[in-house]
Structures are given as structure tokens and as C-alpha cells.
């Protein structure tokens, strides 16, 4: 009933030994986690550390979804589907957090506003 009539031979995936891949990736992820924990102690500029942490956890994220969750081996549509959600959610999160950065939007009760360096018009 399908348009995509058998392009796949039965057992086509059998030769891939996923067991090895999975174990290796788990090790890798554990190592990255260790690095992340180590990174927070380093005496570098804050922006640099933030970037490093964000990149490292993105890498972990991608490994899990592409390998453990087999997006790598699945039809691309699954990836598209998930990334629609991920992108919209990510962009919304980013927008929302940034909206609160505007001086007008800083809450009165916040430490920063109390110090009156963010909202000069309140001083």
C-alpha cells in the first residue's frame, strides 16, 4: 500500500553492530559530562565558559537524539518533526528571556532594580 515499496532488503541493518556504538557513545557522554563539571572551576571569562557549557550540552543532546533515539537511521521526517518543535520552543524561550532583559521589564523587586542601576527613571 506504500509508495515507498521495499527499498530495504530484510535484514539490511543487521550488519551494523549498534551495541558497540551505543556503549561508545555512552562513554563519550560520560566524559563530556565530566568535562562540563571540570569547566565550571576554570578561571576563564564567564562568556567563554557559558559558551563552552552550552556547546558541550548541545553536543550531548545531539548525540542522544541522533544515536540513542536513532534519528540518524530513521526517515528524515522524524528529524524534521522534532526539530520543528525544538526550534519553535527554543526560539520562544530565547525571546521570552530576552524580553525580561529590557530595562522596562525588569521587576521592581529584583536585586538589580533595587540597586537602581537598571531603571534610571526610578531613581
Amino acid at each position, binding site marked *: 500500500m506504500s509508495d515507498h515499496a521495499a527499498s530495504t532488503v530484510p535484514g539490511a541493518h543487521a550488519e551494523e553492530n549498534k551495541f558497540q556504538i551505543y556503549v561508545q557513545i555512552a562513554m563519550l557522554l560520560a566524559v563530556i559530562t565530566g568535562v562540563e563539571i571540570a569547566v565550571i572551576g576554570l578561571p576563564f571569562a564567564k562568556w567563554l565558559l557559558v559558551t563552552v557549557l552550552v556547546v558541550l550540552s548541545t553536543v550531548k543532546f545531539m548525540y542522544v537524539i541522533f544515536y540513542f533515539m536513532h534519528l540518524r537511521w530513521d526517515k528524515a521526517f522524524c528529524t524534521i518533526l522534532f526539530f520543528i518543535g525544538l526550534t519553535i520552543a527554543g526560539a520562544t524561550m530565547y525571546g521570552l528571556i530576552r524580553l525580561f532583559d529590557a530595562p*522596562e*521589564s*525588569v*521587576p*521592581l*523587586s529584583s536585586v538589580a*532594580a533595587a540597586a537602581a542601576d537598571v*531603571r534610571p*527613571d*526610578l531613581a
Partner: protein
Amino acid sequence: MRLNSLLSTTARWARAALALAGTVLLTGCDLNFWRMDGHQSTIAVDGPVARSQRDLFYVTCWVTLVIFIIVGSVLAYATIKFRARSSADEHAEPPEQGHGNPMIELGLIGASVLALVIIAIPTLSAIWYTHDVPEADKSNAYDVTATGYQWWFRFDYPNEQIPGSGTLNTSNELVIPAGRPVRIQLRSVDVIHSFWIPKLAGKVDMIPNRGNFLWLKADAPGYYWGQCAEYCGDSHAVMRFRVIALGPKEFNDWLNQQMAPARNVTVAGAAAAKPQFASYRKDFKQNERGWSDRFELNPLDSWRAHQEVDAKGEDAALIQQGRQIFNAKSCVNCHTVRGNDGSGINGPNLTHVGARTTIAGGLLENTPEQVARWLRHPDQVKPGNKMYYGVNKMAGYLKLGDDGFPVRDQNDNYVPNITLTEDDITALVAYISSLK
């Protein structure tokens, strides 16, 4: 054909309706629902901020109207031109099965974008203009803080400090200098309110834990209607206020009068007729339609008349008695009459309440009858109001439980806390009216 007969019937009715409407208009009957010159008009405006907003509205209006006419004409033409005129027509050979035309599509998209640009440019400039006082005018600006309460407004004048008792504050009637930009900090102590004086500026919300800001300017001295524009609970509809813009001299006089402590009446005098001012008339019953705000004076003069002390009509003994009751009945818990009694902050500051044109959040005209009505049954005048039900664990007319909500007895009735006799009310009214 049924359809045709229906159509001609419709047409007949339409003609009749038009004729009727025409007659009504000609005879001056008030059917013009499109009038936009009320007290809260956003079209007949009196300040530069509201004007820029209105002008922007006109731009959007004209642009969309033109598009509407063009698109509408094409739509109407297509509908009429290609209509099947008979059932035979409906079942004729299907027309050519065309699928679209990319060039037309692109052209129309381009045209839409262009129309939007025409709207976007003035929008952007108005966003920046309405956001803050123009640089050139900044030094001239006057500062006020407005705070929303369920369901009234409090106004502080940070520039005016009263030695020993802090910032000057008043409620429900905001007095501002005319011709000067006014910067208003907006605060809320409970839920979200919104501060809106349509003739002077669009609204900005008063949000708890948020420091909002609004600027406006009144072209000339005048009396303006304001309204809370964010749903804030039971009495949102009647959370109103007034703005009085005054020339420099008059504004200064007013400030001086406000800075002074409350009057303490000790001398008696004779009564004089006061001008009536119809902001809220209780005879304004249902079914009274039409434009009916017939001031006997212009509203600003009405306000001026309220400022004058009419010492002759006062009964000093009664006023003193009122003052005692004011203390005894715990009014002082929530209200302040600076110089006399109390330091309560849960209710409006009453130091000069007699000099306002309205009470209870712009709802009632400030006349002895209305004040009495208010004191008698605050809950009936203003549903849910905090003077009756209590606020911040401070009891008003009802007794409060530990949770801060009114308690009920076995019969599920509220337990009263403050009870006033008619004599108490008479005395309180005399006292309150004397506070100018």
C-alpha cells in the same frame, strides 16, 4: 423563482429601512452611533500623545479602507459577473479548470507589503514618540506616581514633600499642570489595573512588581475622564478617575492648598447654593438614552467651585461630632486626614476630600447625599468594595476571620464590624464635606 422573490422582498425592506433611517437623522433623533466626541473619545483628543496615536489610527484606517474598497470591488464584481443565473447555468459544462497565476500572486504580495510599509513607518515613529518625553521638553516635565488599588487610584507628587509627613498624595482626582509634559510612574498594590485617560494618552498597565511609565500632556486647562482599562475584579467597571489640568498659577495655588493640613472647622456660617455637577446622577435610571451630560457649569468651573470653602453653611458642632465618629468607628484605620487624625493607607487619603468633584473612584458625585449613600451601603454602590469587605486583614464594615476574609454566622450571614446610625452618617457627611 423563490430566490428572486426573496431578493426583491429584501430590496423592498432595505429601501424602507433606508428611508426610515434618513427621516430619523433629518429630524435630529439621536441615532448617530458613530459619534465619537464623548468624554472618553480617542478621536476628539486634547493632548499631543493622544493626537499622535489618533493620527496613526487614521493612517491605518485610510490604508485599509483603500484596500478594502479595491479588493471589495473586485470581489463584488466577480460575484455578480460570474454568478450562475439559473439552475441550467449551474449545471452547464464546467468552466476552464485554471490553476493560478504566479505573476498576479507576486504582484499582490508586493502591493500588500507596500501597504504595510506605509503603516509601519508612522507606527515606528509613534512608538518612539509616545514612549518618553521628547528630549527638548524633558526639563519642563512634572512627575507624578499613580498607584492602582481595587478599585480606586492613589496619586503621589514626589516633587512635593511635606515636612514631617512625606510625599503629598491624593486620590481619584489627578491634578496636573496644563501645557507641561507629565511623567507618570504606574504602580499597583494588588492586581493588574490600567491607567487610561483617552483624551490625553493611550493606556499603560499598572502591574504589580513592575515599574511602568507613561507620559502625557494636556494642551490647555481642562477636566478629563479616566478609567481603569484592565479587568481587575468585581468593580472594574466603576474604577474611574478624573484628571484636572490647570494653568501654572492655578496649579500652584492648588498645590499650596493640598500641602496644608486638613481644615479643622470651628466656626459656623450660613448655607449657599452649590453648583450641580452631573457626572453621575442617580436619577439616571435605565432607558434614558442619548447625549445627556448637561452641565450647569463647564466641568472645570464645577471643579473650581468645589475648591471654595463655604464656611457659612457649616455646622461646626456637627462637624466636630463627625470627626469623633470618624475616630471611633475605626475609619482612621484605613484613611488619613492629615493634620487631624489617622494614618491609614488602605483607603483613599481624605485630607482634602471635600474639594474633589467625585468620590469612590470617580463613581459618585461629591454631594452630601451621595456621600451619605456611600457611607450607608458601600457594597451596594460599588460591588465587592474593600471598605465594606475589608482589605489586607483590616476590617471594614464586616468582621474578618484570621484568613483575612469576612466571617459568617450560623445563618450564613456576614457579621458586621462597623455599624453607623443615620445620625452618625449625617455627622460624618458634614465632616467629610468640610475637608477642603
